[in-house]
Each structure stands twice: as structure tokens, then as C-alpha cells.
């Protein structure tokens, strides 16, 4: 038992700050939702209007939960529950991989497995650790809602609903870690499952059946394939149904048992997906820093580009649905109008979806630049720079590939948008709107690229953390700023919120010149400073 205690203690100690951020961030999101709803949709009539709009235009449900009535508390959960669950899911999936496959990959698991702890106790400790983290998240989220004066039972159901999704993804992470050879591969698998089920839940709700008063929607079968759908169907504050949450628990238990079974079958550090033999010789393209960076980045660029393609396709194919809405709902219209600078609703949809494309492109760009830091700490940069390769040329390779990566994501999104227009027979001008939005978001992504490069040159240690935090903040400002009616200047701090958009009468360039100026100045500064920067010693 003391062995297990030691393993658990070590996990808690390693993760303490990270878990505080995840759990605290989720609680903050809950608090922000309570405040936002009270401010933006204060009256029952407002909320009824919005729900009616949702029933008429189900697309909105892709980014929101399942409508269960216009009461203040149930309405709040409609807006925020999927995101609370998503935070728990990300936290748990990464946690599972971090303490299993990553430890194996780095050789730490071998040290531990050679002690009396053996191969199984670390897995048990990881499960307990993950369940504990989710319980903490449940308690804190419930406390936030109860503290805001919401019903105690519903608050508890809300917290447990988010945590239940988290625990399912703990199981997903554990199984992915058994299957994949690398922690990167296991994390990617976890994220793809997460995004896929999140989308399935939203689509299932969109295809669901509205009640006659339009205040409530019954999910279609598709939603019931997704843990997010189960959590939403607990309908906190409206039904407080435990059944769907029990389903989460059962699936989590099955996945965890599967992970234990798989672990029994394989060697430490082995995997079920065999490593293919590599090439005997490098292809001709692998002969320069540029060739190397592209080689390192191309796999993930393809992944981000697929995301861009799907998002772009949704932007126009779903946008066309809006056209069919007969009722005009002021609150929703206002939201779209605010985003599209008084363009049409369809144009508004394109802008919203391409904000997400911008974030995806920024992710691809930031990830590419953070590879420079990984190369530096890993020690491989030293070997490249000990060859006849200048520091500036080396960094420039990462910047160029990062820019290409962002461009590929945006181009894929525009292509997706064009395909969506073709498929739905929608207004062809939407494809032009998508092109404008896609090109604009490339400029926004380039801002993140050069900012991350500047961080890398000036304070290398912060590169990875700060690079991703910048993207996250921009995403939150861009997506939630208009919803929570933040002041314009706050929303406009986010590069993805100030890109050019197509409007009813032409193109509004908005902050494009600022973005381009920042890219040019920041890029030149980063490269200039790189001339004087030493390579940090590997660790």
C-alpha cells in the first residue's frame, strides 16, 4: 500500500501546478458563464428568444449544449456545459498519457517497474490520480454554481457531469497510451477522439427534435454515441438525470479495464502498433534546415489542415441553413452582425467559423516554432548548428515552415468552404467571403508565429508555455468576447478578431495593416536578435 502511496504522491507532486490551472480554469469558465448569462440574457424572455432561435437554427448547437428550458440555471448549462466537459476531457486525456506512455518513452517507467512497484501499480496510481483530479473539478464546479445561488442538486449534477466526461477520457487516454508507441501519438489519438465525439454530440443535437414550445430539444441517436452527449442529457437543473452519467461511469470502467488487459499482454515500452523500419537513406529533400523542419512538421500540418478543411466545409454548408430561418431573433442576429460588421447572417457564420480556422492555423504555426525550442533542449539543434548552418538561417527555416503550415491550414479551409458551397448549392459569393476570411486569418496566424519566435529568442524557457497561452487567450477573446459583450477594445486585442471580413458592400480590412506591420517588425526583430543569441545547453 505504501508503494501505491508513494506513486500517487509523486504524481500529485509532478502535476500540482498543472492541475491547479486545469481545475481552476474550468471553475473560472463556470463563473464567467454565470456572469455572462446574467448580463447578456437577463430576462426569461431573452432566453426564450434565444432558445427558439436555436431550435430554428440548430447550427448554433455545434458550439453550445443541449437546450433544456429557459430557466436561468438550465440555460447557463446549455451555454457552458460542453466546454466544462471539454476542459475535464483534455485534462484527463493528457494526464493519462503523461503518467504512462510518456514515462515509458523517457525510460522512467523502467526504473519504477524494476522496484517492487512492478508494472501494474503505476497504472493503478495513474487511475486514482486521474479520478481524484476529476473529483476535485466536480467539487469546484458544483461550488461555483451553488455559490451563484443555483439549486444545490443541479449544481452537483453539473460538476459530476463535467467530471464524468473527464473520467471517460481518462480511460481513452489510458487505452491510447497502450496502443501507441509514443506519447505524442497517444495524445494525438486522444485529441482526435475528443474532437470527434464533441462534434458528434453537437451534430446529434442539431439533428434532434425540438419540443413544440421550442425551449427544449431531444437529442438524436448520434449524440448518444458521445460522452459529451451523455453529460448534456443529464440536463442539470432541468431533469438532473443520473442515468446518462452512469453510462459514462460504465464506459470509463470498461476502457480502464481494457487498458489493464492490454498492459498485461505487452512488454514494457512495447506497443501494439508496430514501428515500421525507416529509410536506409535520406530523401533528396532532407539536406537543409528547411528540409529538416518540414520533415519534422509535416505530419502535424496535415492534421491541422484536415481540421481546417472540415471547419471550412461547415462554415458554408451550415451557413446555408441559416438562410431558411424565417424568424428573426434580435439577440442572435446581433451576435452575428457584431462579428460580420453588419453583413448577412450567412457571412456572419463564415466569420465565426473562420475565427476557428485562424486559431487552427495559429496552432500549426506556433507548434512549428516551438519545435525550434524542442530541438534546442533535445540537443539536436547543437548538431545542426555545429555544421555550416548560421543561427539566423536555422530560425528562418522554422519561421518559413510555420508560415507555410498556417497557409496550408487556411487554404484547406477555403477549399472546404468552396466544397460546402458546391454541395449545398449555396450562394457562390460565400466562397469569396471564405477566401477573404481565410487570407485574413493567415495574417493573424502569422502574428502568433512571430510572437512565439520572439519569445523563443528572448526567453527560451517560456517558448512552449507562452506560445500556446497566447493562442488560447486569443481564442477565448475572439469567441467569447462578443458573446459576453466585452468592450470592443478587449476583443480586438485578439488577432483573430481583427482580420478582414467580407461585408454586404465589399471588404472591411479592419486591423489587417496592423497585423502585417506586427508580422514584419516582429519577424525582423526575432531574426536580428538571433544573431546574438547563444544556443542554450541541452538538458
Amino acid at each position, binding site marked *: 500500500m505504501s508503494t501505491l502511496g508513494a506513486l500517487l504522491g509523486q504524481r500529485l507532486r509532478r502535476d500540482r501546478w498543472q492541475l491547479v490551472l486545469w481545475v481552476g480554469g474550468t471553475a473560472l469558465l463556470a463563473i464567467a458563464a454565470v456572469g455572462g448569462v446574467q448580463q447578456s440574457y437577463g430576462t426569461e424572455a431573452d432566453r426564450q428568444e434565444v432558445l427558439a432561435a436555436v431550435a430554428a437554427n440548430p447550427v448554433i448547437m455545434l458550439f453550445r449544449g443541449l437546450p433544456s428550458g429557459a430557466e436561468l440555471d438550465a440555460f447557463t448549462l446549455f451555454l457552458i456545459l460542453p466546454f466544462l466537459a471539454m476542459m475535464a476531457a483534455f485534462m484527463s486525456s493528457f494526464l493519462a498519457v503523461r503518467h504512462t506512455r510518456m514515462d515509458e518513452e523517457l525510460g522512467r517507467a523502467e526504473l519504477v517497474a524494476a522496484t517492487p512497484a512492478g508494472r501494474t501499480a503505476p497504472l493503478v496510481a495513474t487511475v486514482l490520480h486521474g479520478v481524484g483530479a476529476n473529483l476535485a473539478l466536480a467539487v469546484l464546479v458544483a461550488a461555483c454554481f451553488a455559490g451563484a445561488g443555483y439549486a444545490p442538486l443541479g449544481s452537483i449534477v453539473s460538476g459530476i457531469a463535467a467530471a464524468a466526461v473527464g473520467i471517460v477520457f481518462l480511460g481513452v487516454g489510458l487505452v491510447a497510451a497502450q496502443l501507441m508507441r509514443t506519447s505524442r501519438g497517444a495524445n494525438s489519438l486522444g485529441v482526435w477522439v475528443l474532437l470527434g465525439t464533441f462534434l458528434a454530440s453537437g451534430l446529434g443535437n442539431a439533428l434532434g427534435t425540438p419540443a413544440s414550445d421550442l425551449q427544449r430539444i431531444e437529442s438524436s441517436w448520434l449524440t448518444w454515441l458521445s460522452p459529451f452527449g451523455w453529460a448534456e442529457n443529464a440536463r442539470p437543473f432541468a431533469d438532473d438525470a443520473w442515468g446518462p452519467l452512469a453510462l459514462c461511469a460504465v464506459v470509463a470502467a470498461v476502457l480502464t479495464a481494457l487498458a489493464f488487459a492490454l498492459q498485461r499482454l505487452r512488454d514494457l515500452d512495447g506497443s501494439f502498433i508496430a514501428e515500421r*523500419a*525507416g529509410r536506409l537513406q535520406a530523401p*533528396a529533400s532532407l539536406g537543409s*534546415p528547411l528540409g529538416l523542419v518540414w520533415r519534422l512538421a509535416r*505530419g502535424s500540418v496535415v492534421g491541422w489542415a484536415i481540421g481546417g478543411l472540415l471547419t471550412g466545409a461547415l462554415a458554408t454548408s451550415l451557413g446555408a441553413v441559416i438562410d431558411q430561418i424565417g424568424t428573426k431573433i434580435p439577440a442572435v442576429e446581433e451576435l452575428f452582425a457584431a462579428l460580420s460588421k453588419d453583413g448577412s447572417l450567412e457571412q456572419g457564420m463564415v466569420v465565426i467559423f473562420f475565427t476557428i480556422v485562424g486559431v487552427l492555423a495559429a496552432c500549426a504555426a506556433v507548434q512549428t516554432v516551438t519545435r525550434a525550442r524542442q530541438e534546442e533542449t533535445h540537443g539536436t539543434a547543437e548538431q545542426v548548428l555545429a555544421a*555550416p*548552418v548560421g543561427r539566423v538561417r536555422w530560425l528562418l527555416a522554422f519561421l518559413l515552415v510555420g508560415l507555410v503550415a498556417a497557409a496550408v491550414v487556411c487554404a484547406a479551409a477555403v477549399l472546404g468552404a468552396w466544397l460546402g458551397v458546391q454541395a449545398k448549392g449555396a450562394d457562390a459569393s460565400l466562397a469569396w467571403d471564405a477566401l477573404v476570411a481565410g487570407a485574413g486569418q493567415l495574417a493573424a496566424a502569422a502574428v502568433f508565429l512571430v510572437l512565439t519566435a520572439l519569445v523563443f529568442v528572448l526567453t527560451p524557457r517560456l517558448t512552449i508555455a507562452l506560445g500556446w497561452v497566447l493562442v488560447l487567450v486569443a481564442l477565448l477573446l475572439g469567441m467569447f468576447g462578443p458573446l459576453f459583450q466585452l468592450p470592443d477594445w478587449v476583443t480586438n486585442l485578439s488577432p483573430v478578431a481583427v482580420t478582414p471580413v467580407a461585408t454586404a458592400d465589399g471588404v472591411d480590412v479592419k486591423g489587417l495593416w496592423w497585423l502585417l506591420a506586427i508580422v514584419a517588425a516582429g519577424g525582423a526583430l526575432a531574426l536580428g536578435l538571433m544573431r546574438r543569441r547563444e544556443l542554450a545547453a*541541452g538538458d
Partner: protein
Amino acid sequence: MTTVIRTSDLVKRYGRTRALDGLDLQVDAGQVHGFLGPNGAGKSTTIRILLGLARASSGVASVFDAHPWRDAVALHRRIAYVPGDVSVWPNLSGGEAIDFLARLRGAAHRDAGYRAEKARLVEAFQFDPRKKGRAYSKGNRQKVALIAAFAVPAELYILDEPTSGLDPLMELVFRREIARVRAAGATVLLSSHILSEVEQLCDRVSIIRAGRVVESGTLAELRHLTRTEVSFDAGNGAGAADGADASDGADASADAAFAGLTGIHDAAVADGRARFTVDSDRVAGILPALASRNVRGLRIEPPSLEELFLRHYGDEIGDGAGEASAAASAHTREGARR
């Protein structure tokens, strides 16, 4: 003889610690120069400055009479480098990593000469180039850097503990490669804490301690500074002229064993052998005395690099006492075998 590497009063500070504290190093063309010191003495820091990966805080460093930081790219066309702890790209095969590093140094994609050389080295080092980087053990990662370094000719090889993780057979292959490049006229700076390796390979040695070079010269020159150990059987044979004394106490026997030997130090009898040390340039002087007493099991050991090393480092490990020094010596030997 032209000088390839020259540093004078080189200082490198990391915050408050002085990794290099006035380092003077000179490596002449065509030399295999041993750069000797334990972990943390400043070997890798010096090498990073010579490669232009770090900047000196003060002092002068030049490689081929050029500035290693400013002229890094031009210099690196003439240099091959092997780090002590090689990292490889997890998703590139070993063969790809070797090709990539070689191409950065100027090997063309279809260069038949390079390909033949790579094939020869892959064979010699018994290396499997098809595995992905993450699957390689430490020794195999080391081979990636070694093959890439030796497959493209260079004028200067900078090797930072290049054989760590290699088995003895591979160390032999490594030594052959060093002999080959030396014959081709290249200069080698070989940083190491493996004394036997340095002893076998190097023309000159610089010993570094706490960021300074404390000793530099050829092995013969350095050996001059130390004493040679002489030992022989102290049993019945010792002092054969008066065998009657054999049953006396140890002291008497020791005195008898060393009688007539002048200029000797540390004389002692232990485990049936009499031992003493003598200044290396006076060994010839004691030979007649030893011959006249007809000693058996005579062994004369020139000072090992290890002893040279301990002259500078012994006090760090123990406080001068004989036992501490012996323990330290065992310690270093263990380290050397790693």
C-alpha cells in the same frame, strides 16, 4: 607548425559560476590533442565556444585564425563534431540522420564517394541504419554522430567524449578511424575522461581543472614530472645474500629489501612484494643495485596518465593520505572503464 586552435585567458560565466576561468589552450595542426578532465571541469563549455554555439565572456579564442562566433558558418565547413551525448530525431531513421548531417557539411545527394564511405563505416561500426531514432540505445546514437563525422572529410575533428556508451570492440573501430584521419593530416581535439583512450591516441594532452588548463604537454613530458613505480618479490628471494634474516620482523625485512637503493620514495612491503617509487629520470640509476641482489618478479611501471591526473585531482577526492589516494585511484579506474 601552424596552430589550429588557440585560446588565451578564455572566461565563460553562467550567472555567478565561472565555467571557464582563464583557459589557455593551443592545438597545433596534425596533432591528436587530448583534452582531459572530469565532468564539470569545463571541457564541453570550451568546445561550445570553439564551435560558436556559445560566446566567451572575455578572452580570445580562434580556430584556423578565425573567430569561432562570428565566422561560425565558414569554420564549420572545415570541422566535424561529435557531441558526448548524441540526440537524434525520434522519427528519422539512423541512416537519414547520418545523411542529413553529412549533407549539411557538404556531401552531395548522389556523391558516390560519400556513399561508399558511409557504407564502410556502417559496416565497421555494425550499425543498423533502418531503425527510427527513438529506438536507438545510447551507444547507437553515438554511432550516428561518429559515422556522420567520419564519412565527410574534415580538417579539424572536435570530439567531446565520443566513445561514451560504445563497447570495447567499437572503441577499437573508433581508434582506427582516428588513426586514419590523423594519417590524412587532420587535427583532432579529443575531450575525454577515459585515460587509457587518451594515452593510446593522443600526441599531446591538456589537463583541465575548474576551467583552467593546469598541465599541457606531450605524454613523455608529463611523465617526466612523475615517478616510476618499481616492485619485486619480497619473499625469500629478496636480499638472498643473507637468507637468515627472512624470519625477522617485517621492518627488518623491509629495511633489508631496500638496502643500498638510493633516491627512492614511498618504500613499503605489502602482500609479499616490495614497492617503491623513483623519479622517472633516475630509473636507470637503480638498475645495477636491483641486478646485484638478483630480485625476482621485477616490475617497472611508468607513470600512468591516471597518476598524472590524480596529482591534480587527488586532493579533491581525499586529503592527501595514502589510503584516500589509493581509494581515489580505484575510483578513477572505475570511471575510466565506463
